[in-house]
C-alpha cells in the first residue's frame, strides 16, 4: 500500500485542534523516537488515515471518519511537545 506523510493530516486535524499539530513533536511509544508529526508515514483508505512512526513503524495515531463522526486515537503516541509562541519573552 502506498503511503504519504503527516503533512496530509493538517486538514483533518485542523478540524479537531485549535492549532496545526503537524509541527508538534510526538514521542513513539514503540521505540521512543521523537519527531514532528509531519514526518510520520501516513497510510490512507476510505475510512481514514493511520500514521506510523518513521523509525519503527509502530502506529502513532489513527483517524477514522464517517457517519457524521470523527474518531482520533493516539494509540501509540506518548507526550506531544508543542512549541509555544513567545518563548523568547518567557
Amino acid at each position: 500500500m502506498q503511503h504519504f506523510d503527516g503533512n496530509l493530516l493538517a486538514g483533518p486535524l485542523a478540524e479537531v485542534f485549535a492549532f496545526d499539530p503537524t509541527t508538534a513533536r510526538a514521542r513513539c511509544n514503540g521505540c521512543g523516537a521523537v519527531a514532528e508529526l509531519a514526518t510520520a508515514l501516513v497510510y490512507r483508505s476510505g475510512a481514514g488515515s493511520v500514521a506510523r512512526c518513521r523509525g519503527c513503524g509502530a502506529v502513532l495515531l489513527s483517524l477514522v471518519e464517517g457517519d457524521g463522526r470523527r474518531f482520533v486515537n493516539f494509540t501509540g503516541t506518548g507526550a506531544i511537545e508543542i512549541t509555544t509562541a513567545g518563548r523568547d519573552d518567557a
Partner: protein
Amino acid sequence: MSEVQQLQAAPRTAWHVAEVTETRRETPTAARISLDVVGWPGNLAGQHLDVRLTAPDGYTATRSYSIASSGDGERVVLAVDRLPDGEVSPFLVDELRAGDRLEVHGPLGAFFVWRPPASGAVGRPVQLIAGGSGVVPLVAIARAHADAGDATPFRLLYSVRTPDDVFFAAELEAARRGPAPLEVEFVYTRSAPDGSGGPVGRITRERLAAAVIGADAAPIVYVCGSTGFVERVAAWLIELGHDQAAIRTERYGGT
C-alpha cells in the same frame, strides 16, 4: 510581542467556497488552476489545501494539493497533475472550467513552509529538491524568496521527465533572473533539451551530491515529490552529512 506576531503569521484555517477564475494546460498531463476564494486569509509559501468534491449521491472525495502562490489576497493558484487512476485529479485537470466552484479547506500545514527572514537578514542557505509535480510548493517558496528580494542563497534541483513537463517554467526563469539569489538545475529522466549535453536518467546519489548545497554550509533542505523519490533523496542527504532536522519532506504518494 513575538507571541502576537507568530500567531498572526499562521493564517487561520477554514472551509471556503472557491470559484475557478482560470484553468489552463500547464504540462501535457497537468493543469494550472486559478481560484478566487472569498474569505481566504492568505497563505505561507509551501502550504497546501484540501479539495472536497461531492457527487450527486453524496459521495465525497477529499485530496490535498500544494499551493503555487503565497501571500495576502484571495487569489490562490494550484497546479494539478493527472494521476491515471485518480478519483479527483482527472476531473480537476480535464473537466474543471472557469466559473465552477470547489470546496477548499485551508490554508494547511506549518511544517513544509518557508518564511522570508526578518528585514534584510541572510538566513541559512536553502536547497529545494523537486520530483515532478512536487515542484509546486517549491515554486511558491522560490517566488516568495524572489518577491521578498531576500538575500539568502537558494538552489533548486528539479527532477522532471522532459522539458515539456516542467511546471511554471517561465516563473522559475523570472525568479532565477531576479535579484534574489537562485540557481536552478534540472535532472531530465526521459529526455533532455537539444544540446544540453547532460546525462538523462533518474537522479543518483552522485548527481545529488554534485548539485546540492553541501552539508558544510548547513542548508535547510525541502524535498517534495513522490514517496519513493522523497525517501531515496532524503536517505542520500543524510548519507551526505545533512542534518536530519534540517530536511523537510513532503510526499504525495505514487511510486
